[in-house]
């Protein structure tokens, strides 16, 4: 009985060993299959890698040729537009310089805003102004100049609408003399200089003109010089 049981245990043990051995060990045939598959895979990958290397080389060459074309085109464009763009940049930096001033300092340099406006208008008249690339820049420039003009108006700046000579006796001298203007006739050049955009000759103003009345009647050096030039021309 014992021998029989022992034989059965032995047979089970042998069966287990055989099964596990069959599971763990690779057969020669399986090894050969894996070798064949991996060799094929390796060869395919090598071919793919060679192709990729060739593609990358040709892309690099094309990339370099694009760089060269871009440089050449940029140089030609700069030759045509360089001076114009420098003028735009210069004007922009002047506008920025005025924008960074305090209101009081800006007011003292108010005349420069008109100069900037004139310079911008000149740039707009040039042929290259038609290029699309400058349009948004000009629009932004104009809005900055407008903002500067708005700041120099100030909350205290008055306006005066010119009446007729027959009825109101309006001339710059008489307007400046009015109590609600400067109460000082000699401050008339201030009104003239503050409205250079609409008064070319200070002796001629028209009914209905809306004049800006600068808050401070004190004449700047430039305004005094303009007044002297006016008197010397007149006499």
């Amino acid at each position, binding site marked *: 009985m014992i021998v029989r049981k022992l034989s059965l245990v032995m047979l089970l043990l*042998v069966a287990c060993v055989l099964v596990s051995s069959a599971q763990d060990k690779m057969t020669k045939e399986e*090894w050969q299959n894996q070798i064949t598959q991996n060799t094929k895979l390796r060869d395919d*990958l090598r071919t793919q890698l060679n192709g990729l290397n060739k*593609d990358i080389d040709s*892309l690099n060459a*094309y990339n370099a040729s*694009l760089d060269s074309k871009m440089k050449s085109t940029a140089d030609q464009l700069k030759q045509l537009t360089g001076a114009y763009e420098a003028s735009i940049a210069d004007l922009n930096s002047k506008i920025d310089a005025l924008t960074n001033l305090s209101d009081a300092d800006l007011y003292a340099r108010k005349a420069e805003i008109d100069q900037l406006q004139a310079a911008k208008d000149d740039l707009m008249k040039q042929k290259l102004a038609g290029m699309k690339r400058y349009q948004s820049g000009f629009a932004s420039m104009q809005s900055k100049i407008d903002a500067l003009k708005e700041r120099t108006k100030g909350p205290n700046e008055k306006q005066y609408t010119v009446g007729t000579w027959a009825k109101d006796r309006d001339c710059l001298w008489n307007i400046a003399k009015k109590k609600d203007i400067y109460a000082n006739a000699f401050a008339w050049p201030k009104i003239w200089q503050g409205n250079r955009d609409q008064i070319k000759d200070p002796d001629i103003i028209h009914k209905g003109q809306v004049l800006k009345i600068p808050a401070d009647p004190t004449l700047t050096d430039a305004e005094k010089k303009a007044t002297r030039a006016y008197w010397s021309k007149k006499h």
Partner: protein
Amino acid sequence: MDKYRNALLTFLLAGIALGFASCSSGPSEEELAQLDALKAEVSSLQKEVASKQTIKSDLQKQIADKEANLTQQQNELKEAQDLLK
């Protein structure tokens, strides 16, 4: 007596079976090492191919951007030349 003979036969058969199991015709250690080396090479090549594909795709994107810029530059050049005629 028969019992002992059967038991002996069983042990003998088990011994033969074990002998077959251990000496079956599997690949040698050298051949297994060869397979491992091949698998390692394949894995390395796969990584290299993936890296090159990334490089290629980056280059293609870069080139597409440059081509667009170049076209824009050329259009602007033509525009400037036409305006200055």
